[in-house]
């Protein structure tokens, strides 16, 4: 069983440890209802940021449309669970949201991903606005500007945690594979990638679709945890919030996205007592980080357990080479 290697067991242990810590804190009462909201917000932001990082950090495409795909997931889960208020409904809602978001991303991705940089950002921004305006005008199905309320509280922090772990593992698997390297090659130099037979449009689109699907999952969690959703929660500003997490953590570092989502989430909680000063202090914190660490908290570094485990092995492997050189 190659799946049961040291590295994967290490990761499993790490996830279990984090879970045990949170569960412990909940049981002891450190995490009350108020902090639980912050916790779930962080977990949802982790999913969003990891997905957006795949698009921006790995395929190198600048997307500002993440909130739109989140809205699709939120409304899909909201509409379905209001009809079927149980975990089956939640699953159906999540999956249908992911399928719709994936299809929308595929349809808009193929023409827009030919654009580069600022142009793509504007185009994806437009896509998110189209999704939002469409939801506003769907009449009874989405309830227009008032949004949906009374969505059953089906998601818990545990479900959000599971979803976040699931997304992190999937995206990390993807980026550390041959297709992932092909995706990175598009970011590094698309002309060279094409000259090696890499279909650049394809890998850009796959990254964009995967990002959209994970955003939709985050949206479904949001809807079924907070119970109230409205189109104004999924504006351009929401996309920017996610972008901030990605840039703050380091473009191209999944670990960075996770840490940044947690740090910014905690910062937000601690700044609550400052009232209206909160946003100013939050912005100042961002400015300071960008001045002193412009590549984000982690740059492109990752937490790689495989490196820890293999360090010893490598050292012993290297030695014979040195001896050979000495013999010459």
């Amino acid at each position, binding site marked *: 069983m*190659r*799946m049961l290697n040291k590295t994967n067991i290490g990761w499993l242990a790490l996830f279990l440890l984090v879970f045990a810590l949170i569960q412990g804190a909940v049981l002891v009462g450190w995490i009350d209802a108020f902090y639980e909201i912050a916790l779930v917000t962080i977990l949802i932001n982790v999913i969003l940021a990891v997905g957006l990082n795949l698009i921006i950090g790995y395929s190198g495409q600048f997307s500002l449309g993440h909130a739109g795909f989140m809205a699709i997931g939120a409304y899909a889960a909201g509409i379905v669970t209001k009809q079927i208020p149980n975990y089956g409904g939640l699953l159906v809602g999540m999956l249908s949201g992911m399928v719709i978001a994936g299809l929308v991303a595929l349809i808009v991705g193929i023409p827009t991903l030919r654009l580069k940089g600022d142009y793509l950002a504007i185009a994806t921004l437009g896509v998110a606005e189209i999704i939002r305006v469409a939801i506003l005008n769907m009449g009874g199905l989405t309830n227009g500007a008032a949004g949906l309320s009374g969505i059953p509280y089906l998601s818990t922090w545990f479900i959000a945690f599971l979803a976040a772990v699931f997304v992190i593992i*999937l995206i990390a*698997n*993807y980026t550390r*594979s*041959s*297709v*992932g*390297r*092909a995706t*990175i*090659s598009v970011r*590094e*130099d698309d*002309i*060279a*990638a*094409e*000259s*090696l*037979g*890499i*279909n*650049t449009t394809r890998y850009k689109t*796959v990254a964009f679709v995967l990002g959209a699907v994970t955003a939709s999952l985050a949206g479904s969690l949001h809807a079924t945890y907070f119970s109230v959703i409205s189109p104004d929660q999924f504006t351009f500003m929401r996309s920017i919030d996610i972008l901030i997490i990605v840039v703050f953590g380091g473009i191209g570092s999944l670990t960075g996205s996770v840490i940044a989502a947690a740090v910014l989430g905690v910062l937000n909680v601690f700044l609550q007592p400052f009232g209206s000063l909160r946003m100013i202090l939050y912005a100042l914190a961002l400015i300071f980080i960008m001045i002193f660490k412009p590549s984000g908290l982690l740059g*492109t570094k990752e937490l790689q357990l495989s490196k820890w485990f293999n360090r010893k092995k490598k050292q012993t492997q290297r030695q014979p*080479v040195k001896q050979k050189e000495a013999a010459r």
Partner: protein
Amino acid sequence: MTLMKVEKLTKNFGGLSAVSGVDLTLKNKELVGLIGPNGAGKTTLFNLLTGVYSPSEGSIDLVQDGTTVSLIGKRTDQIAELGVARTFQNIRLFKNLTVLDNVRIGLHNKYGVNTFSSLLRTPGFYRAEEKMTEEAMKLLEVFALDEKADYLAKNLPYGDQRRLEIVRALATDPKILFLDEPAAGMNPRESVELTQLIRQIQKEFDLSVVLIEHDMSVVMNVCERIYVLEHGRLLAHGTPEEIRANKEVVRAYLGGE
């Protein structure tokens, strides 16, 4: 046996004809040189043949297993899959990736598993990764780059970067390899090493090599046939001896009436 046949190839940029009416044939396992003064259209010709630009007129046919495939209208990555690889005048490595990863990206089309297997890490994924790493290390060994496999490409010395770009192109298992000024920026000793390297590649990998080069010692030493371009037109074509004796070529390079 003819491998590639190019007829009346023309590329116009607005009013400028960068390449006009070029005929060219390439046989199996041949070493061909492409020379000409600066701005003669050599790199444009490479870009046309590898699909970076689409030609204004003319045809490019690739002969594969006895059947002829037209490359007109095909994307660069499709042409690469048909067995046409290249390097670039200004090195285009994936700078922030390791040497090993650069080569593994070249191997992706041949061994890479699909998105689904990669997301879920099926047993096939692990097999493919192992196979790719093994093949990449084999290639790197041929070029004595295997001990630097973990280095980031941007940290390699210049000569190694040039060689890595060639290794990466070879990873796609090409039938034809286009080298755009491989000796640019190299000192005479490195140029000599490069000459040997190109011969070795052509023999070991069983392919045709076309190279653009300004270093005449490399071109005259290595190439069996030479095409000379000037102002986008084919000026001369022949063996190194014929080209050396050609008055038109001397005029194009040194000036004269």
